[in-house]
């Protein structure tokens, strides 16, 4: 069951986190409630909390212990990353006790607190990146960030790249958010993230994700999503979702079956860039760029020629 923002929940949070000031309840992310918060100095709280300042707090409930164990490993990886491309993970805890009633909570609460990135999601500023140099530069930056996941010995895949999950800082640099920390949590979410076929967002998810071919899902699924984002930026429209009202199964059908018109045929990109985006959005993973290095080299060459 999804959590709902309520006075009781907010009261619980203020007891769990002395010094917290809940500012805004954002759109839910998957099964999680998301709040913008600020931490202020409070004698009942560890002093370091006040140093966090503005944060993003995500909260969810009823997670299976095996999932928690996996998430703890992913948390460690995130802590290792410490990169400008990802928000810093400040806090992570599973709560089982209700400090107000001094009794067990009826469910486990899983809370993460991340650095709040000042900027706006790519979904709100796509036209800024519609020209080729900016689009290519953005792609190259994103690949630089994602390679920290892809080339990690654990071979991490984001699996839910989309414009909503890319924040553009005020200086124009991207930050990738919503790493798949609780991606295996449950059923369909409310932000377009689709669970029945595996954790992903139809429209950006690769064919292998949509077919739930777990063995095939690797970093090239993220490459596919980046290709879709690039196509959307350069052409000005989503390649698989023509209207907001398009049913999910139509979007999935198009993703699995439709061959996209090359961007150069639409006059939206140079031939090399069009060819690269075409390869990135190939239906078969083996036809997409095979290594991060290869992808970066191609992007750099295209960028140099623009």
């Amino acid at each position, binding site marked *: 069951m999804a959590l709902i923002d309520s006075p009781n929940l907010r009261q619980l949070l203020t007891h769990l986190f002395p010094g917290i000031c809940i500012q805004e309840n954002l759109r839910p992310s998957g099964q999680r409630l998301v709040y913008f918060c600020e931490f202020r100095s409070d004698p009942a709280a560890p002093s370091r909390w006040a140093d966090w300042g503005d944060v993003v707090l995500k909260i969810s409930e009823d997670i299976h212990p095996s999932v928690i164990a996996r998430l703890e490993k992913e948390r460690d990886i995130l802590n290792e990353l410490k990169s400008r491309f990802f928000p810093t993970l400040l806090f992570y805890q599973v709560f089982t006790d209700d400090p107000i009633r001094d009794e067990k909570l009826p469910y486990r609460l899983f809370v993460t607190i991340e650095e709040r990135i000042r900027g706006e999601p790519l979904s709100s500023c796509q036209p800024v990146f519609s020209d080729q140099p900016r689009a290519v530069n953005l792609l190259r930056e994103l690949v630089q960030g994602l390679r920290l996941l892809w*080339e990690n010995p654990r071979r991490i895949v984001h699996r839910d790249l989309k414009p909503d999950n890319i924040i553009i800082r005020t200086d124009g640099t991207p930050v990738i958010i919503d790493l798949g920390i609780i991606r295996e949590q449950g059923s369909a979410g409310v932000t377009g993230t689709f669970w029945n076929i595996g954790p992903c967002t139809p429209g950006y998810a690769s064919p292998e994700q949509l077919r739930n071919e777990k*063995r*095939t899902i690797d970093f090239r699924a993220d490459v596919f999503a980046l290709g879709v984002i690039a196509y959307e930026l350069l052409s000005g429209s989503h390649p698989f979702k023509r209207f907001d009202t398009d049913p999910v199964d139509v979007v999935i059908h198009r993703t699995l079956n439709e061959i996209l018109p090359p961007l150069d045929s639409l006059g939206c990109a140079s031939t090399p860039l069009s060819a690269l985006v075409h390869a990135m959005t190939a239906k078969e993973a*083996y036809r997409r760029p*095979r290594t991060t290095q290869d992808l970066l080299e191609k992007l750099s060459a295209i960028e140099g020629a623009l």
Partner: protein
Amino acid sequence: MSIKILHQVGHNANWNIDSFSEEQCGDGLILSPVHQDMPHVQELSQSLRRRSLFDPQYYLPNSPKAKLSTYPFFPGQISEVFSTVNFLLLALESAKQCVEFQIEQQFEGIIIPARFVDQMTTQYFDRQEDLTVKPFLTALAAVGGSTPVYLTVPITSAMLIDDGFQQQLLNWATGFQEISGVYILVADNRPTKQIRSSAFLFAYLKFAHELSNAGLSVILGHLNTESILFSLIEGVTLTFGTFENTRMFSLDKFIDNEEERRGPKARIYLPALLNWVRYEQAMEIRNDNPELWDKVYTETVHSQQAIAAAADPAFNQPGLYKHHFLCLAEQLKELAGLPVQRRFDAIRAMIKRAAELHAQIEDMPLDLDPHGNGEHLGPWLDAINRFYRLYLKS
């Protein structure tokens, strides 16, 4: 385009070494521990090792072959009693030692070995990853370096012909950023020495083409004369060998078979026929129709000596194999120098010409034995025509 040719070493490794070192035939060797014990490999010259690869041959991990047991990292050696479960515990240690050996010996690249699994299920991938791929990648990450890394992909012809499974294989083999190439071996259980299935050949060509297109160096192991067809793959590395068990991949040579078998009949490679012909039948063409013989035969120093010798050559003498190396290398070198369209045209013309010559032999009349006749040529032509139509034609 560059095509490399490696000797697929087998019994009598010296024949390959002589051909490579003394006649500059081929670009290097794929060493074979089932045929070469560890001290012999270590004693090879450094210059030869630097141009060679070492295939660790984990295909049958509990193989009792004596020479394999001289390698302490071989699965059947590192664990007292081999079992998959036991080996899982020792897989990383085996990988570390095997990687260390390949680096120490300064081979041209490092081969990640694989077990031969003939089941077309996801178990294929799970087993490869658990037993070798992941342990080797871990071991390689620990030592670093820039030596090219090749992933062994031992498969069956059925796996290639099945489109769905081939796609899974492609997705899997292209999914490791750490590797720079793949070493493919295909077991094809057939009664004939030549491949007569156009479906298999087409599927194999497509597989190699897709891997090459993905930016991987493609080494095709255990090839027979069909290597001519595979010269259509850009940048491919082809292989040739002496005995048949280096030209057709099978687990048989890893089984300790003590049964004494009669050796195969001696055959000579006749380049214009694109086939090996039984030696005594070849001599019938030579003696009874010299004009036709001149069309099908290419002379080398080795064939000249064999023909001039008082006794007919036997299968266990090197001359006819060395003749084969020289002839095939020359054919492949000529093809490699052509752009792809002309290469395709040339191969097509070679096949058609071979079919004509086979017809002339039949008209002599002389019925070549089933392994030496031209029945493979039709399927070969079908396979490359289809491959060209779907993948090469611009």
